[in-house]
């Protein structure tokens, strides 16, 4: 559902998915049900100011009502900057940011994630950095630093270690990015 549709269209509650609430709770949004929709988080949310159709309060309400498709068809959940101002002000200790993360986890389980996230995950697995600029070496040298930072990019063993860790996480089970054994 695009933002225009979300604004105009009728949401059919009888087609809602009541399993969404439990899924969110299991994926890190334990405090979901504490929310009383007071809108204090929305008052503190940069996504509201920027004009995204879904944000903390609305995402939580949509989860309450089981509007899985409405949330998955919109990119809003991926725009949260994790500023956590909502978590700081929430009078119900809901951790709204954590609910958005949990909704992303739901989306990922349905392969509904933006290309940038896939690229970030791939880059994390391949280099150890979610943001990796292959051409950054020159810039680093220009300011007097070694071409590579002292991270996984400069330590093949450390990268192998990290990859071993990632291969034991849910990311591997989901098969979102290729995770070949190094050297295979």
């Amino acid at each position: 559902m695009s933002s225009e549709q979300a604004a105009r269209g009728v949401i059919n509650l009888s087609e809602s998915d009541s399993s969404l609430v439990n899924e969110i709770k299991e994926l890190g949004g334990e405090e979901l049900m504490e929310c009383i929709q007071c809108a204090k988080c929305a008052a503190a949310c940069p996504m509201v100011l920027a004009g995204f159709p879904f944000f903390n309060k609305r995402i939580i309400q949509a989860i309450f009502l089981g509007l899985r498709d409405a949330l998955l068809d919109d990119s809003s959940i991926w725009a949260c900057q994790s500023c956590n101002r909502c978590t700081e002000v929430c009078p119900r200790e809901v951790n709204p940011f954590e609910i958005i993360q949990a909704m992303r986890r739901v989306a990922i389980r349905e392969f509904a994630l933006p290309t940038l996230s896939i690229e970030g995950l791939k880059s994390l697995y391949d280099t150890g950095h979610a943001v990796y600029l292959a051409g950054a070496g020159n810039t680093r040298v220009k300011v007097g630093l070694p071409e590579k930072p002292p991270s996984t990019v400069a330590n093949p063993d450390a990268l192998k270690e990290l990859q071993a860790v990632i291969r034991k996480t849910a990311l591997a089970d989901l098969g979102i990015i290729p995770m070949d054994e190094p050297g295979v």
Partner: protein
Amino acid sequence: MKVGFFVGCNTAFNRPDLEQAVRYAFPALGIELDNLEGQSCCPSWGTMPSVDVVGWCAVGARNHTIAEEKGLDIVTVCGSCYGSLAESKYKMDTHPEIKAQVNEILKDIGREYKGTSNVRLTFYYLYHELGPDKIKEAVKHKLDGLTVALQPGCHTLWPSKVYYDKEEDTFHPRVLKEMCEALGATVGHYTRLIDCCGMGAMRSTDMEKSFKLVEKKLISMKNEVNPDLIITGCSSCLIQLDTAQDLLRSSKKINFEIPVLHFMQVLALCLGADPERVTGLAKTDVSRVVNRILEG
């Protein structure tokens, strides 16, 4: 004094001049930096944290254990790394079952997360371990006569429950202000001080919407403070405020330019660092303000 330096991605690849500033300033103040060899991404919010809690904590925990083995605290200059590392630590320290699952994963690579190292942010670390007075004594150049506007950054403040160093009042932060005042700057207050700059996931999702926030912020700074310089406490805010101005000017949203530097860059300059090395990658024109600092 010694501390583990967590570089992260954006600083290492986008703004290595900021990395260089940290590498200059800390030793100049008598604090040795350990490289935490083999560190990886924190991991950043849009990656592992968006997949599952244990996976996020496991990648974070590997970084924590590197510091734990050396008996060092972690210090980072990036708000996102600060947030992600502090939050994964908080989760593992308050949820034994998460910690146990993480350690089950780490066992295979011979590591164990214990929770003995704290996660710190550069300017908070200096504020608490040295204090503004010692820094004042150590600098060669001062910001006397310069009016600055601050951008502390969301991750330096919230969620306060996960952080080791916290503001007394997270909605009226004082630490970065006191640090800049110690360097001699006049810190102007503007009413959108704690508003988000729009960097991060929002910018990658919708640049246009993200720029609405930085525009509002810059205009509030310009109208209420008219600063010579913007000083940030977070590397992500640095990138946003520094790169957005050119684009906002070309789309006629603003008609001014304010130089932007991270606090650690300003501190490095004050301590005598080579401006090319510690500020050389700024997109805004910082040359005039840098010269004034070096004269000050």
